[in-house]
């Protein structure tokens, strides 16, 4: 551990983080796993100006380039977590440290990129396990706001941002019964049955959602017809890229019924949909495939939805979706409270024992994620021209026992030190 930190610190010392951008670095002698193509034993990767300049079996070191020998090690693309709250929430239970959700049902103008704290301790902790970029999304209400796709390194959001908005996040209305772990689910005195109430609320929300979409559409039309004195509405303005199909809607829907309704909604509204969570996506796989709707999966390591579901159902779903031809990415944020983005690779690995080929699992935390977020030509594999977000490992990155030796983000070595390592060093020496 200390050696790893020392290597990283040494690398940092050699590299100027300021001034004329990242230096040119040649990684040499490692097994390169481009993910997009066959592995290259004894391969090299040249990084220049933050991008991958060359990949191959033999690359001559350009003048002035620093050469890093990586014999016996492996180079993979950095992993992408497609659902996190990184930067928006520091300590889950402390309200003052959360900027995840705001008041109201329709808040498309809210931007996660505005509130992400680049100094969050979660960032260095997460990237230390090879996750180099994440999607952070706002929550709450129906249209929650704009997600951001960002590198996990940078002084400011300007350094970090890859896409903002990466998506318009939405929670599809559903019949929500009162209750839960500590609740009773009983009817309030003098009111109708809780189910009837919940159904009414749901129908009302559906109506409001359709009205909102209609308003946005009319706004766009009016804006197109109007002159310079057109009065801007920030909420409706934010919906235009969604209606234009430039920004996808990341729609959370869990059960089969809700997923089907969300698909019909996206179809009717002509918006591009990414399904989030989709606990029962496997029941709707043909529809998802037919509509080319990709899925951001809930954590594989979770309990089955129903008592009589097979014990391994959640482990099997990625394999089933893969067979059905549905594109998906793994993600750490889920219905439980145990999200821990650094464990993203283990969520992918958990599906491998249960029918998902290992290569597909790896792609679903790298290339497929990039493709889902519309940056398939910028990120997610080791290919010329892409961002040089790379990790150097001593083995398969999906295995817990593998150590992440070095991380490069936008072509620069990243310090693998973090709060946890500092506390480790401090108290081990006590």
């Amino acid at each position, binding site marked *: *551990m200390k050696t790893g930190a020392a290597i990283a610190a040494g690398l940092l010392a050699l590299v100027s983080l300021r001034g004329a951008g990242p230096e040119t670095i040649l990684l040499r002698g490692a097994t390169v796993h481009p993910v997009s193509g066959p592995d290259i034993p004894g391969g090299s990767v040249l990084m220049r100006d933050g991008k991958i300049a060359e990949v191959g079996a033999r690359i001559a070191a350009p003048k002035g380039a620093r050469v890093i020998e990586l014999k016996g090690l492996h180079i993979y693309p950095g992993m992408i977590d497609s659902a996190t709250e990184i930067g928006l929430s*520091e*300590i*889950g*239970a*402390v309200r003052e440290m959360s900027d995840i959700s705001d008041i109201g049902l329709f808040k498309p103008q809210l931007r996660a990129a505005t509130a992400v704290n680049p100094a969050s*301790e*979660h960032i260095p*902790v997460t990237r230390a396990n090879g996750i180099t970029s994440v999607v952070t999304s706002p929550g709450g209400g129906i249209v929650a706001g704009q997600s951001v796709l960002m590198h996990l390194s940078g002084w400011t959001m300007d350094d970090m941002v890859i896409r903002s908005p990466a998506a318009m996040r939405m929670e599809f209305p559903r019949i929500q019964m009162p209750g839960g772990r*500590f609740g009773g689910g009983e009817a309030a005195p003098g009111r*109708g*049955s*809780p*189910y*009837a109430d919940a159904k009414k609320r749901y129908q009302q929300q559906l109506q409001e959602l359709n009205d909102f979409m209609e308003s946005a559409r009319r706004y766009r039309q009016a804006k197109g017809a109007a002159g310079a004195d057109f009065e801007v509405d920030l909420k409706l303005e934010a919906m235009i890229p969604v209606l234009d199909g430039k920004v996808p809607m990341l729609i959370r829907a869990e059960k089969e019924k809700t997923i089907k309704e969300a698909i019909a909604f996206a179809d009717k509204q002509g918006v591009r949909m990414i399904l989030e969570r989709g606990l029962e996506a496997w029941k709707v796989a043909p529809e998802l495939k037919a509509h080319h709707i990709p899925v951001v999966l809930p954590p594989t*390591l*979770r*309990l*089955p939805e129903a*008592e*009589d579901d*097979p*014990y*391994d159902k959640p*482990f099997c779903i990625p394999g089933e979706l893969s067979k059905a031809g549905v594109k998906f990415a793994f993600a750490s944020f889920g219905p*439980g*409270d*145990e999200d*821990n983005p*650094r*464990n993203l690779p*283990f969520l992918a*690995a*958990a599906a*491998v*024992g*249960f029918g998902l080929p*290992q290569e597909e699992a790896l792609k679903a935390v790298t290339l497929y994620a990039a493709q889902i977020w519309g940056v398939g030509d910028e990120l997610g594999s080791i290919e010329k021209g892409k961002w040089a977000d790379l990790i150097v490992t001593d083995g398969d990155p*999906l*295995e*817990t*026992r*593998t*150590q992440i030796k070095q991380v490069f983000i936008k072509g620069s070595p990243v310090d693998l030190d973090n*709060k*946890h*390592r500092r*506390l*480790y060093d401090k*108290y*081990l020496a*006590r």
Partner: protein
Amino acid sequence: MNRYALFLLALPLAAGQTTVIRNATVLTVTKGTFQGSILIRDGKIVEAGEKVMAPEGARVIDAGGQYVMPGIIDCHSHIAADSINEGAVAVSSMVGIEDVINPDDIDIYRALAGGVTTANILHGSANPIGGKCQVMKMRWGKDAEGLKFEGAMPGIKFALGENVKRSGSPGNGFGASPGLRYPASRMGVEDVIREALTEARAYQKEWRDYQAKLDRHEQAIAPRRDLKLEPLVEVLEGKRYVHAHCYRADEILMLLKVSDDFGFKIRTLQHVLEGYKVAREIAEHGVGASTFSDWWAYKAEAYDAIPYNAAIMVRKGVLVSLNSDSAELMRHLNTEAAKAMKYGGLNETEALSLVTINPAKQLGIEGRVGSIEPGKDADLAIFDKHPLSNYAKVEKVFIDGELYFDRQKDLEERPAKVARKKALVDQFKAQEKKERKKPESSEDKKGEDPGGVR
């Protein structure tokens, strides 16, 4: 349905039968790793080694290419309990998990399918002194009594920090607590524990005085039995283990001092996320630590939690286990153990010990379970790959030599279960349709609630 199917399946392997698991990579945890066989008779491991003769009539299980490890032990779980928190009082030592075990909880089977054979089921963390714990085996299909780990030392839950204080804070109800409840600070938490133990001491003295009078053949009236203080007297007398939920280093030291003052030993510190900061003191007190692998930052007192916690404490001489506190995490404690290799560099045996022999020692059942050794209960988990690999899955699980989980059987039985469920649903629907046709049935209908009729 699972239960009956598996019960039938277990019949040919019932106690009394001899079983040999062979060609396996055997991870004994305490006696090294080898390629070989395990001989099981009368629910116990008789022999384990590179060459084990298969006695005539023995059932042979070929585990070629597979890995056998001791059944996983979870030192902190809440599965199979109908209720967890008695939060209305700050000291709830009068209640116990032993009275609320639900043997039908599917999480028992799910845990079993993750290789878990024994778990410590604890009361919740709403009180400085909580309810009594119950150690049980995952004998899916047995009744509540049949699940209990016979002869295991009884335990009790203590809890410190935020969960306990929360009931004292307005607008933050926890468990069943209505409104405010003392304590609301870590100072108050210490006070509540000291007050209760002081009471317990007085109660202990009442009984001792009574006994002394009887011994002297004097007339004496027995003290009134106090169900709250009785378990605490057992704690003072070392007859009941204390499993104490804690997070911060300061409160850990507080509890160690309290236990010193009252002359008993805390058996385990649970969660103990800042244990690494005071590992030396924990080791000096001979207190066990049962922690999470890598949870952090979910609440203020977990902000200094680090995944190196287990490794640091191991290096400083603390007896450490990894627990789940979650029906989900419980299903993959083997790979949770692998995290202690990644973070802090434990070796394979040290890592596996965190979920086998170490928790067994913490629960005082290491003579029975926790490693693969002759004389111990045949509680074994067979994995298709090395259990520290994220690609490994459980193939078979034995408890007391009986096969309680078999993945192949589980897979084979699925179509029949689906068909059975469908038949039941169809039958139900048909009945409902029939009833709806009856004109008088409208009287029976109460409300529009679709789920509320039955």
